């Protein structure tokens, strides 16, 4: 199990909220350097899986390893390797772009001597050098997302975990976010684990995809493999519908998830 080639290894990953099983025995290997997409309708258990991998929820021993370390016993070491973007717009509007990134530089113990320069570099890398001294509440949705990307990248993570990174963004802003992710990945070889609702994004950017439904993985492979397995000329959208039933939104499964998604979308205007 402790194979160094894998960024994330899940074995029998399971989590229940009270009686409701959100993640129901997932086996997953994310190879180092790949972009791995976790797809599924609302309430499929994607966010819960992400929260278990990022140590936000307690995973049992042996369930999750990140770069060969068991997350149940090595929280701090695992967190040092992860950059995380939650679903919501989570930059602090009361602070400037630079201050937002500086906070995370401090929280990741970036040495004081390097801090200023590193913050400047990361802000430039996401295209916010000119807006660095403005308060984040004046930013557009796409800019806030890129600022959050800068916060997640300040620690030079080996694994970037993105929960619905482009939700509510217009197509241009979505491309902008993905371009920055691609640039950093090319330069550093960082692994990316992403959840998304957007089939076109998954198709375009993910090396491999896992389709989740009701806490389980229903299909796994490259976008090409998944499409070819269904029928020649199938779209990823059709693959998605085949495995998850007809509706994109599973009602009642996870109200908070849906509410949060809506709130993020409405905050972005």
């Amino acid at each position: 199990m402790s194979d160094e080639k894998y960024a994330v290894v899940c074995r029998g990953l399971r989590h229940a909220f009270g009686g409701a099983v959100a993640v129901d025995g997932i086996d997953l290997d994310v190879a180092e350097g790949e972009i791995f997409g976790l797809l599924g309708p609302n309430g499929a258990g994607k966010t819960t899986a992400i929260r278990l991998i990022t140590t936000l929820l307690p995973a049992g021993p042996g369930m999750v390893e990140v770069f060969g370390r068991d997350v149940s016993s090595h929280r701090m070491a695992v967190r040092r390797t992860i950059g995380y973007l939650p679903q919501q717009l989570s930059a602090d509007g009361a602070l400037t772009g630079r201050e937002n990134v500086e906070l995370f530089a401090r929280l990741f113990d970036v040495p004081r001597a390097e801090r200023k320069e590193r913050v400047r570099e990361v802000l430039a890398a996401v295209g916010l050098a000119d807006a660095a001294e403005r308060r984040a509440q004046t930013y557009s949705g796409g800019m806030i997302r890129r600022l959050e990307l800068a916060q997640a990248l300040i620690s030079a993570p080996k694994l970037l975990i993105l929960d619905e990174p482009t939700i509510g963004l217009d197509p241009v802003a979505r491309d902008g976010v993905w371009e920055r992710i691609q640039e950093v990945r090319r330069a550093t070889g960082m692994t990316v684990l992403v959840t998304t609702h957007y089939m076109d994004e998954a198709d375009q950017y993910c090396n491999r995809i896992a389709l989740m439904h009701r806490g389980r993985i229903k299909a796994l492979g490259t976008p090409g493999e998944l499409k070819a397995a269904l029928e020649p000329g199938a779209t990823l959208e059709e693959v998605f519908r085949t495995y998850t039933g007809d509706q994109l939104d599973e009602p009642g499964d996870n109200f908070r998830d849906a509410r949060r998604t809506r709130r993020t979308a409405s905050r972005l205007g």
Partner: protein
Amino acid sequence: MTHAVPAVPPAGSADSSWTTWRLLPARVVAMCVVELQKIRHDRTELYTRAIQPALWLLIFGETFSRLRAIPTGKVPYLDYLAPGILAQSTLFIAIFYGIQIIWDRDAGVLAKLLVTPTPRAALITGKAFAAGMRALTQAVAILVLSAILGVTLTLNPLRWLGVIVIVMLGTAFFSCLSMTIAGLAMSRDRLMGIGQAITMPLFFGSNALYPIGLMPGWLRVISHVNPLSYEVDALRHLLIGTPGNLPLDFAVLLVAAAAGITAASALLGRLVR
């Protein structure tokens, strides 16, 4: 929440309580810096929060000074009142501080903070001291106003240092109380309600406005278990030189703050679930 401990922890990299202690000062600094940056960007709260204590000093203080209804010995009533109002206004800042952590939860900030190498206790301690920074800026405003109104304040720098420590500890306790309630109540509305319900009993059930000796027996008991009384006692002793039991006050506030940090850290997990 329970931390699963492996039978044989691999050497060097496994979490330990040492990790928390080593990271604590850096995390406290990070949180305090952010709080000061926020205060610098938006000073309106600073001004609006100064109104209430100013009214207490100007109206309540001046009136009761003239009435001489509250026997405070040789100490003028306004002098007696000023440290009490200082403690009260830091209490008001701290008791609603948990709202911020619920807001952080809703906005995904809390999740993001907890995926950094920041143990929960370090995050809570950082927030508690950040609340203390806000309280200190408030304290400056109240003490300047007190001085203008003719309150005789100490000029001893060591005593001022003591005031800073006491305000920080008191605010740390009450903000942790607030964050503990946040972890139990889980919503802003409920926290507002509970906060409002306990603020006045904490305030009136202390020696902020009148000596404990004037209270009926049952209120005296409340006052003796109320950390605010110890904060007021220490501030009064340090600022205007009334007799007080500084070591006891300090010990009570230190233990209260530590207990508050422990309770709030234990409940923080509920908020990110």
